[in-house]
């Protein structure tokens, strides 16, 4: 391992491992996306280029009710989750940041727990909650939204709080010093400064919601509450057509476009350090 012996030499071994890893991690997905454009039913043998699995008359994402419904429902959950989780998370981040006195530490820990709790534990807990305590809500879209919001709130808090810490207290104090009452300190100074973090966290929430599987599956009701992830799970081994690849490709492109947009907004307005931290956020 020459990279250990000569620090100025090119670390060939590390370069090799990294290169092979990147190829290994991305090529399978690339091939899966490629076969979404296959002009045949096979997902392993290339039969020419076509967009039939995206827009064809039958069995395509556009025209197959199950595929189209799953995509529609996934996007619906994503949008609602953003609309609900972002404001709650921003308010919680602000509240926690300025929480003085008892209780702050406990709330902090509880807020972070959803980030590390295995999803199956949350899935079972919420499933039993809706069956045993809240049958009025029941399983289905509402339960799925509630479940997704419950763990995406934490992501919003983490992102927004990171920005709050890097903003510091000076701006707020300056606003107070110049005569702004607490509400104005919030609306005239803090929220404008937090805007990039809020947009970024909304993007992250949307992407997580789109990709979520376990909680969404546990809280699903009838077939109309099937999402893209659930459909992938259900049909991956059941001799599917490339339409499944097409569906996954569309969902992936939407996710990446959302995150790319959120990242650009964040990078434009926040320091590059903050942006890097956001991009590397753990899921």
């Amino acid at each position, binding site marked *: 391992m020459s990279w250990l012996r000569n620090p100025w030499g090119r670390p060939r071994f590390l370069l090799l491992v990294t290169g092979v890893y990147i190829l290994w991690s991305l090529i399978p997905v690339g091939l899966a996306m490629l076969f979404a454009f296959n002009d045949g039913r096979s997902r392993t043998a290339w039969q020419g280029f076509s967009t039939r699995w995206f827009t064809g008359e039958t069995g395509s994402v556009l025209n197959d009710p199950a595929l189209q419904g799953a995509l529609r429902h996934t996007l619906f959950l994503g949008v609602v989750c953003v609309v609900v989780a972002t404001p709650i998370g921003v308010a919680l981040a602000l509240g926690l940041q300025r929480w003085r006195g008892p209780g702050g530490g406990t709330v902090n820990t509880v807020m972070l727990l959803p980030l590390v709790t295995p999803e199956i534990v949350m899935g079972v807990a919420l499933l039993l909650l809706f069956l045993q305590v809240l049958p009025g809500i029941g399983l289905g879209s509402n339960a799925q939204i509630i479940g997704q919001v419950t763990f995406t709130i934490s992501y919003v808090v983490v992102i927004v709080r990171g920005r709050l810490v890097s903003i510091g207290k000076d701006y707020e*104090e*300056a606003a*107070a*010093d*110049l*005569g702004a009452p607490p509400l104005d300190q919030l609306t*005239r100074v803090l929220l404008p400064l937090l805007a990039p973090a809020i947009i970024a966290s909304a993007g992250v929430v949307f992407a997580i919601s789109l990709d979520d599987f376990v909680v969404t599956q546990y809280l699903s009701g009838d077939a109309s509450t099937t999402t893209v992830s659930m459909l992938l799970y259900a049909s991956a081994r059941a001799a599917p057509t490339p339409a499944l690849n097409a569906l996954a490709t569309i969902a992936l492109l939407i996710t990446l476009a959302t995150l790319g947009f959120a990242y650009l907004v964040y990078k434009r307005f926040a320091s590059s350090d903050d942006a890097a931290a956001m991009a590397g956020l753990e899921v």
Partner: protein
Amino acid sequence: MQGEVHLEQLTKQFGDVTAVDGIDLRMPGGEFFTMVGPSGCGKTTTLRMIAGFERPTSGRIVLDDTDVAQVPPHKRRVNTVFQSYALFPHLNVADNVGFGLKYKKLTKSEHQKRVAEALDLVQLGDYGKRKPNQLSGGQQQRVALARALVLTPAVLLLDEPLGALDARLRKDLQVELKALQAELGITFVFVTHDQEEALTMSDRVAVMNGGHVEQAGSPREMYEEPATLFVADFLGVSNLISAAASPESDGCVLRVGERTLRATSGATASRGEVKAMIRPERVGVEAQGATGENRVPGMVERAVYVGSAHELHVRILGGDLLKATVQNDGSAFAYEEGTPVTLYLPPDAVRVLAPSAAAPAAVEA
């Protein structure tokens, strides 16, 4: 005079740590008042309490006969120039300066006029449309000043406002800031850790240490007549001499080893172990063998050329090392290292010090 601040038994504790320990200070209206001290001495916490960002644990902050200790910051007639400037990055310069005017209920034209006047005052009349990040450090500092002054506060608080600037710009702004204060007649309360800045800018200086005020007075008093060891050591360079004191009718006699010195200033009524000090520029350097009162023989151990002067480190008989400054008047330098000399310590320049007001316990503010 408006803008007089009285701190009465002001105390601030953070948990178990006492950052400010029952200080009393009088800041006369219209003066340039400086709090100086090492980091953690409580000066910034004191300033933040006057601004309203920290609530005092106990004590009063009397601004023109009203106790404002419990008044929230946005209702105090006090404005702050922050060390970081804290210019709002999402607003341009004019909007930054106009930020607080919104709460003054002005007409639009009045608002604009006040902003323009404030910007002219700090010579940034043409910069209204710029964003803060398009300005240099010195310009940002001026915007911060204009943003606070436009509200015509009774007291302007400045938290190390020159700390982030380079040495030359710092000097220029020191002069400008002092001139501005004199012109406006607003009370300035200035916090710095730089003793030179404190001495050159202020009408009155308070030296703080470990949450206490060691001494407060005019810069001249503070430098010439330091009351405590800490003040003597913190402001300027001083030679400290350990001695046994016994008072007499005209000053006091200090016994240093075999020798006696006469001292006529400071705590001359002290008896027993004391510290005495003398400034290097007051130490006379004479040829070996010179005789008379308050003369001690010694040997030049180091001679440092500093341009305008020579700084001599002289080991006197008995072991203490004294610094002496010899002005560079162009004549040949006669005090190479190893030269035996006699030092003259004028009785009125030897000052007997009282012990420090507080043990210098460093407390992070």
